[in-house]
Structure formats: structure tokens, C-alpha cells
């Protein structure tokens, strides 16, 4: 018997669980995607840039919320906060920060998701998602996976977790960083206790953005062997959907007394996700909370904002700050967040089913 044998030896040991095997797929896929695409690395870097805008905004909100701070001496910060919220709202915030601060934070975190991160996520998914299954079709890697003791759902979960990882690294992780910085910049410790649910909301919002998007891109990827076709199909689905939604909304706004059809949100995957996210951040009730304290004028203002889509012809509504209009646009139009969430769940189940069928079929050939 040799003293040291180079080569094959038997192994008997405890095997890992089902989830470890899924995440092994994820780890290798993330490593492949990160190493092979410079574009992806750049976008992952760009995804953190919006923090540079939102940090001063939270600093400004924190500054104006503290009654001991003089608004005139901090004119620049007051101006930044005023970009997003009317002066009446800022005054109310100074008087009752414990009521208004959580609501305002919810709205701003929602904007962080809706304005920048959702868009950047769609781009990163377009880079990282399409090759994930198409490449396995082309290189017949299904046999490598399924000759081992893993099942189709584990394969799907491993691939989905790859997309989710990239989306979360652009939504949840920057959101948590933003939250930590904002807490550090906030006037006192009560802000932390008042705004703690935002961490949970941000996590849920990130997942509800990532999972349906991930499943749709994986379904597209499973239908072809060519990753370029999959990328093109994803871009067409996203951009065409987005344009269709915008066109429908704009044409509805131009015609007097006409609402954009509720189903218009179904055309745009990003819009659908953001509708669900608006429900998680309770944007509508947050806006109502902010404006209820303004008395009759505030009530009128909030109603006006929430119905902005119907009142686009009203010159008074158009005089509101543009950003507030956008909040109202997003909060008051399209289908309800509950319906949007339901639509995303149905879409996810459908896509998951198609992917599993495709994977099973590929092994049998």
C-alpha cells in the first residue's frame, strides 16, 4: 500500500441540505457574472450613486424637523427639503416631528426605490439575467446539474437567487446604508424607534421587486439557447411595456375627465412592481398623514395630489412642486397595490412553471 496515494479516495461524510446545494449554484453564477461582465460591475457601482442625492435630502429633512434649528441659517438645507415638500408641510414637521417624520421617510424611501433603484435594477437584470438558463441550454449543462441529487426546483431557486442577489445589492443594501446614514443624521434617538419598520418595508419591497423580475427574465432565458436573443427579448418586454404605459397615461391625461385605464399598469413590469412597493411603503396613507395636519387647505391639497391624474387639466394642481406631483401620480394612478401584488404573484407562478417544464424537458433529450 502506498504511503501517499495521489488520486481517488472514497469519501463518507455528512451531506449538506437542499438549500446549500441551491446556493452553491448561486455562488458560482454570481462569480461567473461578476467576473465576465465589466458592464455589470460598472452598473453595480452606478447603483450606489443615488445615495449621494438622497443622503443630503435626509440630512435636510432631519435638519428642518429639529425645532431648535433656525431655517434661515440653514437656508440651503431648507431649500433641499422644500424641493420635495411644500413649506406648510415643513412647518407641520417642525411642530410634530414624531407624527410626520415616519410618514415623510416612508415617502422618501419609496421615491428611492421608484425613481432610481427600480430603473437601475431593470438594467442590471438585463445584463445578468438572460444568460443564466440560455447558457445551460447551449452548453447542455442541465446534465451536469441533474445528474447530481438536485431537483428542478433547487435549480430554479439557485438561478433565481442569482438575480435576486444582484437586485438586492442595488435596492436593499443601498437602502439599508441610506437608512443607517439617515439615522445618524437624524435629530434624536426617537427617530430610530419611529422609523424602524422601514427596514422591514425596504426588505419586502426589494424582494417584491426582485423575485417577479427574476422569474420573468429566467423564463425568457429558458426559452432560447442564445443569450443575445434573451437579452433582446427582455429589453423589448421592458421598454415596450414602459412606453405603452407612459403613452396610455399621457393620452388619458390629455383628454378631459378621463382616467388612465387601471390595466395600463399591467403593461409595465416596473410600474407593476412599483405599485406593489407603494403599498408596502403605504405611500397613499403617508401622504394623507402629512397633509391631514394642514387643516382644510391640507385636506384639499392632499386630495388634489391623490387625484392628480384626474385633475391634470387643473392649473392649480400644476402649480404644485413637480416632485410632489410625481408622488401623487404614483400614489393615485393605476391599479391598487393589492391587485399589483396579486398580479406579480400570478406572473411569478406562471414563469416558474414554464422554467421547470423547460428544464425537465431539456434533461430528457
Amino acid at each position, binding site marked *: 500500500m502506498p504511503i501517499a496515494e495521489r488520486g*481517488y479516495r472514497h469519501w463518507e461524510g455528512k451531506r449538506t441540505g437542499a438549500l*446549500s446545494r441551491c446556493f452553491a449554484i448561486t455562488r458560482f453564477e454570481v462569480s461567473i457574472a461578476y467576473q465576465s461582465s465589466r458592464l455589470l460591475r460598472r452598473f453595480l457601482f452606478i447603483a450606489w450613486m443615488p445615495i449621494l442625492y438622497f443622503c443630503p435630502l435626509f440630512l435636510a429633512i432631519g435638519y428642518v424637523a429639529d425645532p431648535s434649528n433656525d431655517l434661515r441659517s440653514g437656508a440651503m438645507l431648507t431649500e433641499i427639503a422644500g424641493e420635495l415638500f411644500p413649506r406648510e408641510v415643513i412647518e407641520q414637521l417642525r411642530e410634530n416631528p414624531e407624527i410626520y417624520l415616519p410618514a415623510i421617510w416612508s415617502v422618501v424611501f419609496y421615491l428611492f426605490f421608484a425613481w432610481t433603484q427600480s430603473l437601475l435594477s431593470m438594467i442590471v437584470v438585463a445584463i445578468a439575467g438572460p444568460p443564466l438558463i440560455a447558457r445551460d441550454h447551449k452548453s447542455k449543462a442541465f446534465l451536469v446539474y441533474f445528474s447530481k441529487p438536485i431537483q428542478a426546483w433547487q435549480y430554479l431557486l439557485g438561478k433565481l437567487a442569482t438575480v435576486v442577489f444582484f437586485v438586492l445589492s442595488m435596492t436593499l443594501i443601498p437602502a439599508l446604508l441610506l437608512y443607517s446614514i439617515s439615522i445618524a443624521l437624524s435629530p434624536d434617538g426617537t427617530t430610530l424607534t419611529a422609523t424602524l419598520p422601514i427596514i422591514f418595508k425596504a426588505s419586502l419591497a426589494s424582494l417584491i421587486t426582485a423575485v417577479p423580475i427574476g422569474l420573468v427574465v429566467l423564463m425568457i432565458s429558458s426559452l432560447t439557447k442564445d443569450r443575445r436573443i434573451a437579452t433582446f427579448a427582455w429589453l423589448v418586454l421592458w421598454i415596450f411595456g414602459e412606453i405603452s404605459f407612459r403613452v396610455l397615461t399621457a393620452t388619458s391625461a390629455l383628454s378631459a375627465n378621463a382616467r388612465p385605464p387601471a390595466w395600463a399598469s399591467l403593461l409595465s413590469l416596473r410600474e407593476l412592481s412599483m405599485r406593489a412597493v407603494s403599498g408596502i411603503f403605504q405611500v397613499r396613507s403617508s401622504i394623507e398623514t402629512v397633509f391631514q395636519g394642514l387643516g382644510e387647505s391640507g385636506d384639499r391639497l392632499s386630495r388634489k395630489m391623490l387625484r392628480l391624474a384626474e385633475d391634470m387639466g387643473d392649473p392649480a394642481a400644476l402649480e404644485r412642486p413637480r416632485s410632489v406631483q410625481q408622488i401623487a401620480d404614483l400614489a393615485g394612478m393605476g391599479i391598487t397595490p393589492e391587485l399589483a401584488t396579486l398580479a406579480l404573484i400570478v406572473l411569478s407562478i406562471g414563469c416558474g412553471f414554464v422554467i421547470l417544464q423547460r428544464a425537465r424537458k431539456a434533461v430528457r433529450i
Partner: protein
Amino acid sequence: MILELDNVTKFYGSYQALADLTVKVGPGAIGLLGPNGAGKSTLIKALLGLVDLSRGQAKVLGLDARRQSRRIRELVGYMPEDDCSIAGLKGIQSVALAGELAGLPRRTALRRAHEMLDFVLLDEARYREVQTYSVGMRQKVKLAQALIHAPKLLFLDEPTNGLDPAGRQRMLQLIRNLTQEKDVSVVVSTHILGDVEACCDAALILSRGTLLVYDSLPNLQQSVDSSCRVRVEGDIAPLAAELTARGHQVDEANRDEARVSGAGDLGVAIFEAVEKCDAVVREITPSRNSLEKIYLQAMRTTEEEPVGEKS
């Protein structure tokens, strides 16, 4: 028994890929022979639970292929015929991933990946992407992937496909090493008869989804007629003449070699003739059937009995 098949049948639509296969296969190195389209790959996939059987029952290492396929894949290694790899991974990564998929902890998978690549003799190239590999190197990676989780049984689907003669010899040597020294049972699916003769203990011949033959190689190679190959020093003509005179049939192959056949005790007859002719015998070998002969014979039998389509 490593395999127990009972009326195993598989239809793809109306095409019957496997037709009522019934056989029990013992441990060791088994050659799964058959022409292209015989059903070899389908049988392996069915045994791994990757393809559902239309009828019948299959057991691998005593486990039901339908209900316990996941457990089977923990105990069995599979080297597919297809050129399959995960694009973008290096050799070492792709073997380590196979290990992790099989349930090995991360560190163990990496350590064993190195060991397996040492075993298949893939050295520095393991740090290159698999897509840059030659066919032979890819075959080695596939073998390492199949072995990493220490399977008790290994299915090798056309393991010598695309290999040069030296690579083929090396692959067969590895298979022999696994069965003889590492106590791993191996099923080698191939249409190359020489591969089976070189490394297997038994052969199972399929044609159009039906089982033609299953037996050990020594039994299969036993001559059906009694004949011997005789080689002498110098010219064989005097000995050939003596044997012909004694009523035996002699076919001279070379100047010093002939094949002798006939009734009675052939060995005694040859030695008596040798003594009479004063010849110097260098070699007397009982004739064996070549696997090729058996294979072709079996193929001819089935060609006249076409496998029916699903009614």
C-alpha cells in the same frame, strides 16, 4: 445486484426506445453494448430517474429508480455522452460545483475536486476555463465530476468518444483502476467493442431497445466449436499434413501458425502429431469467440425481428 430491471419499457411518443428489458446485473465492470439508437443512453437516464419509465420497474443498488431517484443520484456517478459543461467555469470550479451539488461541504468539495483531477491527470489546466479544453481534457473533467462524491456505481456513457489512441488507453486504464482497485462498479455504455474487451468483466448487448445478451466476458468468449491455434518453431506444414491425415481440419494462418479444429480430444491429437513430426511447439491456445463475432451474431438475429411500435 447493482441493477435489477423488470419489464422496463420506455416509449417516446409512438417510438419504443426500451422494450421489456428484464435482467439482473451483478457488480463489477459491465459493458453496455449496442449500436447508435439501441437505447443505451435512455436506459442510463431512466436508471438515474431523469426519464420516466412507461412500464416496468428498475432498481439501482436496490433502490427504486422511480421513487428514490434522488438517493440513487447520491450513490451513482454519471458521465454523460454529450459535451456538457457550465460555461464560464474553470476545470477545478466545475468539478467542485459538481461536488457541492452532490451534497459535499464546500471545503471538502474543493479538496476532492483537486484529488479527482489528480486522479484523471489534469494538472495545471484545471485553472483554465473548461471551454478552452480539448475533447480529451473535457472527458477527464466529466469523469472527475462523476467521481467527486465517491459513487458506488458509475455510469460512463461513451467515455472514449473523441479521444486519441493514447487518451483512450489512459481512460480505459482509469476505468480498470476504479473497478479493480477502488471497488467501484462501472457500467460502460459504448459501441466500441474493444473498449469493453479492454476493461469489462461482463457485457450486456442491446439492440433497438431489446436485450440480446448478458453474460460474463469469459463465458461469451468461450468458443462454440472446439478449435485451437497452434504455433511452432519453423515450418508448420509437416504438422499440418499429419493433423489433416488424422482427420482434423487445419487452416494455415502463417508459415508457423495454423488453426486446428475437429472432433474428439483435440489436445491429445495435436500432441501425438507433434511427437510424430518432431515439431517444437511454441504455443497452443484454445480459440475464443471475439466479442465482435458475438455482437454481429446478435445484431443479425434481431434484424429479422423488428421491434413493434406502440399500438
